[in-house]
């Protein structure tokens, strides 16, 4: 359906995309992941010529998009686009936002367009907001209207440009649920996203972008569990872990807790599990480890999440006295809290540092 060959794009002297090659077939759901600045959004925007590529070609059903003779507006109607910042038309009500394209561009009758728009609003769960203006909607609601607006043009493919990046964490799932439903209905989609769990669940193929090109592609299983190339591995590892460095006895506890919380939300962990992790780290570091650290303080906390067991793994590497809370025989409150939540743990010296590993149970 779409073939991309040797596509490149430069902004002045900055080469953002180089030699991108890909094929997208009908019915595929492709997630595009990768570090920021790797050209994910640019690739998507090149596909419907919101950015003009500097080289290469894009074939849509055999027609070259970059040919001067191609009717770009017509091809764009086949490709819907959902933006990070929703971009609803602020002077129109929700239902008018959806109707505008079909009435003006597809020459659909107003009544038919209206009925179709109401059907789409029902599908995204917002029919009662049909006569609301964009500034009366929450972020998640705006994005759902924007998705309905795109679908009203009956596109053959929908491009999602980070559809949840501008949303509060509480609103992300309502938007993703709509996208999941589209995937289940067989809609061809290309999604630039930072929601790894979602990418993994919903897509048929994953593009990992780095160095301005599609660095590695494969099924979600291949990319998330057995990435073959070095940079992919580092990226996947990074999104699965949270690292916090402590360099002083008066460190930023709230920074640590905030980081753990954000990490937990990205992994879709239940509130309880996030809270338990924060509690164990606070009790362990403040009451047990600070006194055992050697000067200068050098403690690295790594929080990881195991997809297979669903458990949280903590790794604390530091210079100082070896310590394992499970082998501590005292009976104070911090220790009782820690032991209550830790399933198993080990402590060993490696390369001049003490490594304390703890696994937290995922018990309700």
């Amino acid at each position: 359906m779409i073939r991309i060959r040797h596509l490149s794009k430069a902004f002045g002297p900055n080469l953002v995309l180089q030699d991108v090659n890909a094929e997208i077939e009908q019915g595929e759901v492709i997630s595009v992941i990768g570090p920021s600045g790797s050209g994910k959004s640019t690739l998507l925007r090149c596909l419907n010529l919101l950015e003009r590529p500097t080289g290469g070609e894009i074939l849509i059903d055999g027609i070259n998009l970059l040919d001067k003779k191609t009717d770009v507006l017509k091809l764009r109607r086949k490709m819907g686009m959902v933006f990070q910042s929703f971009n609803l038309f602020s002077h129109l009500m929700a239902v008018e936002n959806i109707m505008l394209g079909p009435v003006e561009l597809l020459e659909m009758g107003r009544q038919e367009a209206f009925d179709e728009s109401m059907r789409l609003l029902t599908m995204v769960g917002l029919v009662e907001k049909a006569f609301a203006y964009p500034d009366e909607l929450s972020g998640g609601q705006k994005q759902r209207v924007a998705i309905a607006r795109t679908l009203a043009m009956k596109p053959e493919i929908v491009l999602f440009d980070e559809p949840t990046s501008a949303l509060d964490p509480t609103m992300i799932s309502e938007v993703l649920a709509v996208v999941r439903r589209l995937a289940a209905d067989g809609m061809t989609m290309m999604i630039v996203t930072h929601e790894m769990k979602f990418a993994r669940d919903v897509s048929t193929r994953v593009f990992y972008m780095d160095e301005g090109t599609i660095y590695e592609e494969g099924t979600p299983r291949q990319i998330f569990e057995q990435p073959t190339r070095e940079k992919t591995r580092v990226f996947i590892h990074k999104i699965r872990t949270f690292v916090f460095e402590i360099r002083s006895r008066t460190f930023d506890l709230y920074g640590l807790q905030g980081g753990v919380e954000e990490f937990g939300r990205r992994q879709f962990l239940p509130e309880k599990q996030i809270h338990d992790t924060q509690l164990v780290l606070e009790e362990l570091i403040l009451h047990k480890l600070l006194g055992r650290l050697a000067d200068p303080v050098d403690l690295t906390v790594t929080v990881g999440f195991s997809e297979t067991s669903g458990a949280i793994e903590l790794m604390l590497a530091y210079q100082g006295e070896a310590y394992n809370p499970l082998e501590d025989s005292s009976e104070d409150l911090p220790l009782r809290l820690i032991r209550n939540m830790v399933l198993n743990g080990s402590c060993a010296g490696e390369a001049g540092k003490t490594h304390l590993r703890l696994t937290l149970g995922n018990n309700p």
Partner: protein
Amino acid sequence: MDGDLSRFVGKKIGILTGSSYESVLMQHIPSALPEYFNSFTDETAAVKAGKIDGFLVDEPIARDIVNNTPGVTYIRKVLRADGYAFAFPKDQTALCEEVNASIAELEAGGELRRIDARWFGTDAAAKVLPDIRLDGKKGVIRLATNSGSPPFVYHKDGRLVGYDIDLVMRIADKLKKKLEIDDLDFGAIIPSLMSGRSDMAASCITITEERAKSVLFSNPYYRGGVVMVVASSPAAGEGGFWSGLKESFRRTFLVEDRYRLILKGLGVTVTISVLSAVIGTLLGFGVCLCRRASSLWASVPSRGFIQAVQGTPIVVILMILYYIVFGNVDISGILVAVVGFSINFAAYVSEMMRTGIEAVDRGQHEAAAALGFNRLQVFTRITFPQAARHVLPVFKGEFVSMVKMTSVVGYIAIQDLTKMSDLIRSRTYEAFFPLIATALIYFAVAYALTHLFSLVEARIDPKRRKRAVKGVVLS
């Protein structure tokens, strides 16, 4: 009142701007402080209010003022004997000769004396122009005059009348020429002759050496002199406030059907304002597009245009258009005013539009483009409705301010609302009532127009629209 002028030493004395009175004043009372005015009406009001102690004026006009205004009188001493003559551009010697010959004939035939008696007499019913149809077989005389100098030139029953007009009609009749009369500010008469817009001027103009350097004078047709108008001892009781007001209303609007002048002026003001707003908005839109264009050939000139127009007083723009750009073109002053105000309005409106358009967020353009709208559709469906909402409140203010600004068109011989009220003031010698009445009319016009815009504003404000989609039914 005696002829002793010593009590005016060091006092403020009114002088008509562009007149020859200043040299007369300096000759008689060298230490007097001249104050400059644009009309005798203003000077009369200033004398009555005590702002000046007197002003100089030609004797026949002084008589007219005193007849019409309680509380002033004039000192019966001629400060300078003067001859009044017609003025011509330097190159119109032939016309000047012909006019001189006609004046000599009229004087010999006693016609000049009869004109004199008619316009300086007390019989108002006799003050009518001769019933002459000018056929214009030998062309046209474009006559510049100033209607604020009764009994020489003034408005009566909606027509220009007076000694000078009477005389000029008889001369034009002898020369078989038609008359086209431009009513200008006094100060604009000589520039109009020099620029070639007018062929002849008649406005009780005194012959002076200085003026003779710029224009050609005919032989004098009237001999008079300069006198000084001063406040008389306590004005006779003017009745109560209300009866005074009633009398002012009668004199300003009802006598000689003067309300018709006001209506005519109002029509001119509204015509200029509305036409300029429409053309200026279209022009401003064009300038705005050029200003936003990526090409320097479009954006730099449009930026220059905006800065140049915004930095130039509108009066100067009008004068340049009237005397220089269209100086040799026979074009109605109203048209020149529309051009001038359109240009001025365009410069301001284009910048408003630019900010309005730029306030619409780019994301919506992209979303519309991604749906498949072309650039024109994006503009008309998305950008324009939103920009209009941003712009309209300021646009409204700018329009109302333009309506008021049109009051300067008197400079280029247009009789708008302000000019008409000036004319009425020049007949009634009453400063305040016509001024305040005019202010109220401007206020009413501005209010009505603002209200009209508010209706449009309400229509395009989404929050005040009915929550329904046009042309569909809810199933």
